[in-house]
């Protein structure tokens, strides 16, 4: 800290102010431990990481531990962690710093989370959850977390980071309060959180989907990859794994960013079909999948082999067309788990330090089952939302009531 301060004084204009600030600095803001955190080397240019890839490759095959009928409590290769230091009686207040609810996947999860919250409130485990939504903005989320630390009176934090590296310092500050911190969905570059809840990961998605396409296509076939946008780690990892496997298998692949806009997707696919035949469609998220299929219909071409997502619009179209397809899943029921983890932590029960939830794709055999289970749900709903045993089911999801 002192070394840091000395250099800071070197910054000509702000020097004096910062020196003064040394006495009155906001107590919650402190440098990272040692040289860690933000002092780390710049992340690699490429998203592909062989080590993580291998790990996720293996985790796909692991039989998860935990109750069969409660997938949101299952865990893969858990390393349990003692939480007795957090054990305490009474109802707790949780503070939730959410990245956003700007896409149907996050909206569905957010609905499920709130139903879970109602359940826990009824049991008196949690009295209140205060939520701040960062609307996809890193800077806002950092401010949200700092606000919770200063003003929230929180008994625990739940953080769904907007991005990995940028939110890391703020999560570290939350950890310094000695209250339990639960991180889920995207990760951060620190293990100070009590538990980090996430499905297996982006590489697993890429492996499942690319493997499926490779199995159903032959060398030299062409795949169009439809991607949302560049630079988002969870999406880039899906693509990194798939791209590697495609090139190894000799599949020709071209990728486009369409931001999940069906109009854009349809144009891209139509143009690809005008250029020549396309045998496969790969997506890094299922938004707009139906319009990609409709582009084949309108062009009078045979349906491709396709991987979408467990969004109902895609599952319904898949059923209707009986095409060869796979619906990979970025486990939506993970939105329930953080609150249940909080319950366990306050009871002093062990939780895994990295809580890996199962992430198994919906295959042709499962399709009917999932369609039946989600009958009456809107098209933007996700089949593996995992809220069937909550009291609001099914109306709350059917009406899409967003608190």
């Amino acid at each position, binding site marked *: 800290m002192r070394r840091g301060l000395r250099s800071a004084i070197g910054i000509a204009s702000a020097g004096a102010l910062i020196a003064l600030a040394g006495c009155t600095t906001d107590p919650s803001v402190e440098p990272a431990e040692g040289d860690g955190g933000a002092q780390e080397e710049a992340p690699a240019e490429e998203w592909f990481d062989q080590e993580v890839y291998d790990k996720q490759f293996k985790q796909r095959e692991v039989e998860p531990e935990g109750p069969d009928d409660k997938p949101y409590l299952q865990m893969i290769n858990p390393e349990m962690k003692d939480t007795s230091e957090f054990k305490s009686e009474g109802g707790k207040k949780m503070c939730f710093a959410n990245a956003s609810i700007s896409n*149907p996947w996050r909206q569905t999860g957010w609905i499920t989370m709130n139903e879970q919250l109602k359940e826990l409130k009824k049991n008196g485990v949690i009295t209140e959850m205060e939520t701040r939504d960062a609307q996809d903005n890193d800077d806002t989320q950092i401010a949200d977390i700092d606000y919770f630390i200063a003003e929230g009176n929180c008994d625990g934090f739940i953080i769904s980071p907007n991005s990995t590296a940028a939110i890391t310092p703020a999560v570290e500050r939350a950890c310094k309060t000695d209250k339990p911190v639960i991180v889920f969905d995207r990760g951060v570059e620190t293990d100070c959180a009590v538990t980090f809840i996430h499905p297996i990961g982006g590489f697993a998605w890429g492996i499942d989907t690319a493997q499926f396409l490779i199995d159903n296509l032959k060398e030299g076939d062409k795949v169009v990859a439809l*991607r949302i946008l560049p630079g988002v780690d969870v999406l880039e990892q899906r693509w990194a794994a798939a791209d590697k496997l495609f090139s190894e298998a000799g599949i020709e692949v071209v990728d486009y960013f369409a931001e999940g806009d069906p109009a854009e997707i349809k144009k891209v696919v139509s143009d690809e079909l*005008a250029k020549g035949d396309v045998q496969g469609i790969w997506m890094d998220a299922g938004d707009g999948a139906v319009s990609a299929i*409709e582009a084949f219909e309108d062009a009078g071409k045979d349906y491709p082999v396709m991987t979408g997502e467990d969004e109902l*619009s895609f599952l319904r179209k898949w059923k209707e067309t009986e095409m060869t397809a796979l619906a990979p899943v970025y486990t939506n029921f993970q939105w329930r788990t953080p609150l249940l983890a909080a319950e366990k932590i306050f009871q002093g029960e062990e939780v895994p330090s990295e809580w890996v939830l199962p992430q198994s794709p919906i295959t042709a055999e499962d399709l009917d089952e999932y369609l039946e289970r989600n009958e009456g749900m*809107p*098209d933007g*709903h996700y089949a593996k939302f995992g809220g069937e045993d909550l009291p609001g089911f099914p109306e709350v999801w059917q009406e899409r009531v967003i608190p």
Partner: protein
Amino acid sequence: MNPRTPETHLGDGGLRRLLGRAADPRGAVVVLLIAILIAIVVLNPGFAEPGALMRFIQRVSPVAIVAIGQYFVIVSGEFDLSMGAVVTAQVMTAGHLIGEDDSKTVPVLIIMLIIGIVVGIVNGLATTLLRVPSFIVTLGTMLLIHGAVMWWTGGAATGNPAESFRQLGRGGFEGLPILDLLPYAVLILLAVIVFGVWISRRPFGRTLVAIGDNAEAVAFAGANVWRTKTLAFVLSSLSATVAGVLLAGYAGVHPSVGQGYEFTAITAVVLGGVVLGGGRGTVVGALIGAFTLESLFTLLNFTSVPATMRDAIQGAIIIAAVAYSGVVFAKKRKRPAASANTTSANEPRDPSTTSAGESSPIQLTGGDGAARE
């Protein structure tokens, strides 16, 4: 004040017309459009087949219709940034209310038209009577409409609307001779073009251009500025409504449909030689701009440009096209200016007045008007 439509540019006859066409920025855009289309055909000969061309026009229709709507607003000196949100709202409304029920198609269409008209009236009245700059009004309505529709639908509509409704944007007459197929969207686009050209030649359209050129003068001349402008905003949001109907059919229902349409529309209009700040431009120009922009995207799909570089290329082309038209206008002004009054004599030194100057309050009523015959 003599409200003239810039069509008169092309009406001079003889050699001058020929030169005029080549140098006219709108002519330049036509050249660019043809060049892009030829490049597409070279890369992919199948594109020139009637069926493929019809599909291409079908795909451009929503953008072209939105650009024509935006034209009316821009030529009157205003902006409509709420278009994208209106498109999204209409697509979501269709998906949410119609569902699988064919009989709801007509009532919901009426509701959508009413939404479109109401948005236009609000934008127009806030701009004219409340005198809030349209850039800000429509920025406000953009946030408002988008937020409201997301709030109402929970971010995802129930599903795609009934097939009969989607046919408008997706289907067409098939098996025709020569054309092979004629999408309904192409017919709707034709109708919009005919209506747009017709109304722009009516007193309404001429007054609108005049307002964009010099609103005070038009007001002094006794025209009703606020009513004319409000009508322009209504036309704009109605065009977004029509585009929404077509997109719900063409692409399906999703909250990201319509995102960024306001900037696409403005870009198309500007490419087509319509000047921001108002007073100059034509419906056909806006239409050509839309086709140029969309065929550029198509060309990029046919070449192996990295997906991430598309935006950069789009940005460079917009600037180049508008800069070119600016320079040409400046040159065109040079000629009459040489013999004209002293005000214009200074102008050749400063081509910036063509466009940068357009946005400034004074419309260079003297020199500029003279230069534009």
